[in-house]
């Protein structure tokens, strides 16, 4: 597909222990410069897809079929060394928990410059200059101090900014953002979302945004893929999905979200027969 930076087709995966299906025939595409939301409740498989792209699936999960085409090449069938290089340089991760994603025993400077020194061959001085520029891009006011700091000396929002800076350090073509704002206060979340969106358009990066929050999707994703139990239930442009949802599950999910602007709407539990129907469809 022209213009698509990432194209996943018929991706299936099972748990190695009991052969339980984790993903089933998942298909999704991300165009250049696009932000695609990957939405689902817990257990839907959205994180698994992100990990499959990055090549960091847990040992217990086995891909049984499908392909993950990044710029036309299948990541799954690539030799390990080439994949490591490609993913290291061109695909980045913004992880979920800023508290645990940083090594508590290392200063920020080291962690921020790891990728630069490994894949760009920069020396400490050169990498440091770029690190300062990155911290500036993510609007950290005292970058010198932050570089010298340990993670526990920074706030949650600051840590997430550092992680975002690290993600954009090598100017990747694709970023997998795995629920990057779930652990943050709502005002901080807005700042971080704004930051990601601005950086993304400045660098022309494509983003896969994994989240369970339909509100976040509405505000920063161009397109959405909705998952249930490892299957794609519906996908399309964000506006279409929100305003004219086709699948009953999509509609039910929207009805369950509380909204402060429409107190009469929301908090409607998803009907059990719908869940049962979806489950039996999945088992078939």
């Amino acid at each position, binding site marked *: 597909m022209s213009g698509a930076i990432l194209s996943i087709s018929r991706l299936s995966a099972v748990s190695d222990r009991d052969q339980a299906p984790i993903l089933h025939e998942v298909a999704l595409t991300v165009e250049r410069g696009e932000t695609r939301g990957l939405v689902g409740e817990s257990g839907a498989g959205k994180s698994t897809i992100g990990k499959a792209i990055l090549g960091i699936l847990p040992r217990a999960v086995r891909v049984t079929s499908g392909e993950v085409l990044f710029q036309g090449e299948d990541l799954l069938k690539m030799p390990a060394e080439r994949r490591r290089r490609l993913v290291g340089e061109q695909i980045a991760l913004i992880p979920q928990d800023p508290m645990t994603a940083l090594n508590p025993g290392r200063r920020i400077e080291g962690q921020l410059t790891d990728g630069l020194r490994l894949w760009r061959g920069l020396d400490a001085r050169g990498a440091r200059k770029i690190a300062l520029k990155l911290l500036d891009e993510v*609007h950290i006011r005292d970058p010198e101090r932050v570089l010298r700091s340990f993670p526990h000396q920074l706030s*949650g929002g600051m840590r997430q900014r550092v992680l975002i800076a690290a993600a954009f350090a090598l100017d990747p073509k694709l970023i997998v953002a795995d629920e990057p704002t779930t652990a943050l206060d709502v*005002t901080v979340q*807005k700042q971080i979302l*704004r930051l990601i969106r601005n950086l993304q358009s400045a660098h022309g990066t494509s983003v896969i945004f994994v989240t369970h929050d339909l*509100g976040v999707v509405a505000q920063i994703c161009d397109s959405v893929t909705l998952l249930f139990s490892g299957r794609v239930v519906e996908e399309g442009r964000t506006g279409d999905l929100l305003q004219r949802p086709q699948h009953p599950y999509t509609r039910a999910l*929207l009805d369950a*979200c509380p909204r402060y*602007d429409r107190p009469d709407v929301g908090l409607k*539990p998803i009907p059990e027969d719908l869940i049962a129907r979806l489950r039996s469809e999945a088992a078939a």
Partner: protein
Amino acid sequence: MSEELLLARDIEVAFGGKRRWLGRSSQPVRALHGVTISVRRSETVGIVGESGSGKTTLGRALLRLVDVASGSIAFAGQDITRLSEGRMRPLRRRMQLIFQDPMASLNPRHVIRRIIVEPMLFHGVAKNHADAESKARAIFTRFSLPHMCLDRYPHELSGGQRQRIGIARVALLAPDFVLADEIVSGLDVSTQALALNLLKDLSRDLGLAMAFISHDLSVIRAICDRVYVLRSGRVVEEGACADIFAGPKHEYTRALIDAIPLPRIDPDWLRRTTAADVAA
């Protein structure tokens, strides 16, 4: 107009500040500064704030699980501010707490039956084990919890089941006041809807006075009558939900409301900032 069941006036809570044997005394950290809050019967009051706002501390203080340095707390007309633990005990049945993380709030080494039944017997809500068992089964049925759960350990159940058990444990004591501390944070939207609807029904049936702590204003809007907005241990704004959301007076409240992403297309949302925004 029903009178206030719980009234806390100007309470201050501070942590730390102990004198050490060999060294200077450490400065106490003030978690709450002069907070006044009231809850009436059959009313649900929201306490909203971000991390560090003191909302959890406020909840614990209202239940006398944390000592207040100054101020007063009255429950059903009785001053409980400095009541001894022994005198508090009979009152505890009437003021209960539902937790955010049911995995942490259910003793991992007790079977569910024990967790549910012990408090009932302790407070005399059930006459004996058989009575407690039948009451437990009744509420499990009502909450769509399989009776098999009673024989399980907490880690063997799903998050949604644990959450409902946490609510059931409290409901069985038929309290007058319930504090719900971030009980739906981190839950799926569908599980959240189930739990909140359960809570609303319960509150209505028992005529509960409820204080609902949350950082999620959309949830607060959906189930609370009044709301207190907390920031750095102080109440910055309070009032009826409808009023606050229609016209927030304090800039922090405005920032909080504005920061919530709604599931509708709003091209202006990202760009929009309020005076309280710190960075770009």
